[in-house]
């Protein structure tokens, strides 16, 4: 199996829910481990930035471990990839307006905005269709399938060309995933999206 050969490291940001993504990736067959402070991220093919928690706390945790700098270096190596999930996606951008303005990793140009309460219920919790716009093996057979979302903020990339999918939440069409070179980031939780999510995670090695 191809999965066995791929080493995935999940960055511990001291803000939980690594357990689910860790379990799911391991079950699929990927060689999965948790990246704590001392482990070098160079050893991994794919690094996952997971996400539940607050933007500021997650950024502080990454900076404390010098992970912001390490990630920049990591992306320079050949055949390596980075996947952001939910908050992990938002952290890749330049800034977020969560509890005041916060700066992010800045790997992707753009910012993170809050849903307007007037238009819809916030947070957005539930299963919604993900409409992919580009042709890509990562989502083969998964177009318009339902994935699980739980968030109050959404990403607005400056370069619209990197938008991999959009999702309609009560009339608001937001960017639900991006693909930019060797970076993939998703607002939904593939590890919580049942069989559909497992299929998605089985495909992510295509970004390498």
């Amino acid at each position, binding site marked *: 199996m191809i999965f066995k050969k791929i080493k995935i490291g999940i960055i511990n940001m001291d*803000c939980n829910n690594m357990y689910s993504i860790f*379990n*799911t990736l391991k079950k699929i067959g990927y060689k999965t481990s948790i990246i704590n402070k001392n482990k070098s991220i160079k050893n991994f093919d794919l690094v996952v930035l997971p996400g539940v928690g607050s933007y500021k706390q997650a950024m502080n945790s990454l900076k404390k471990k010098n992970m912001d700098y390490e990630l920049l270096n990591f992306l320079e190596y050949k055949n390596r990839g980075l996947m952001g999930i939910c908050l992990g996606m938002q952290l890749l951008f330049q800034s977020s307006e969560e509890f005041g303005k916060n700066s992010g990793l800045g790997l992707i140009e753009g910012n993170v905005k809050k849903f307007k309460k007037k238009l819809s219920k916030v947070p957005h*919790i539930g299963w919604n269709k993900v409409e992919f716009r580009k042709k890509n093996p990562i989502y083969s057979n998964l177009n318009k399938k339902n994935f699980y979302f739980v968030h109050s903020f959404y990403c607005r990339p400056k370069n619209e060309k990197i938008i991999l999918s959009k999702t309609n939440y009560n009339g608001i069409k937001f960017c639900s995933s991006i693909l930019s070179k060797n970076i993939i980031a998703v607002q939904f939780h593939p590890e*919580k*999206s049942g069989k559909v999510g497992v299929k998605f995670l089985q495909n992510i090695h295509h970004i390498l």
Partner: protein
Amino acid sequence: MNLKKKKRFIRIIPRLDIKNQFLIKGINLEGLRVLGKPYEFAKFYSENGADEIHYSDSVASLYGTNNLRELVKKTAKHLNIPLSIGGGIRNLNDIEQMLNSGADKVFINSAFVNNLNFVNKAVKKFGSSTISASIEYIKIKNRNYITVANGRNIINLDPLSWSKKLVNEGVGELIITSVNHEGLMKGFDIDIVKKISRKFNIPVLAHGGAGNFFDILNIINQTNIDGVIFSSLLHYETIKKFRLPKINYIGNIQYLKKLNKKKYNPKISIKELKKFLKSKKLNIRNDF
């Protein structure tokens, strides 16, 4: 705010009441029966189309203990849909432990009633989408009161004004349970749920009373809820699929044994409920 026209998405959520690592079920949150192993039921429901699983440790908040963790870990291993945990969560550390064990969200009642400041602290640390408030209310002489410790202690506060306080503190979701209707399988109490779900711009889930698919359809159509939580309707059917655990039973074990021997009826399942709701043009996930 009327989201009806925008086609609300409805989550279907089985709730599993837990006591000492076992799945139990009572009536009006009291009078408990052991039904089986929670993770077996949770896994089955997940494969059958549940959008989320709720675990509620009904005695944790009474005794102030928190032995759910091992069970949450075990369950999270079997599940790849969201798992929300409630019961006995008193502080930030309890929340963190639940999330570290594999929970995706927590729901809290007593600790919020005891200390409203805790809501904002929890939301700031874990994000509003991780923190739900559970409101369990009881009707006495035409007045509604919120309760804590599974309906045992009555608080002089009505559910609507309590909801407002919780929403102002930034809570991410409200779970509304009518203690009078819970476990009776005679339909939901629609009035309060209607008021709360229409007033606030956060997700609202209704729990307590589902006796058949029409009860569920009714509460969805007459309110602005985002999900329905139910248990008895499912558990008493699903129990026929699994072996009863070997423990010292109290209560009406004959009833359970009899039920356990009957043939499982797949018509009473989440899959069938979803088919039914879909046929009524509701926005339901059915690509599981």
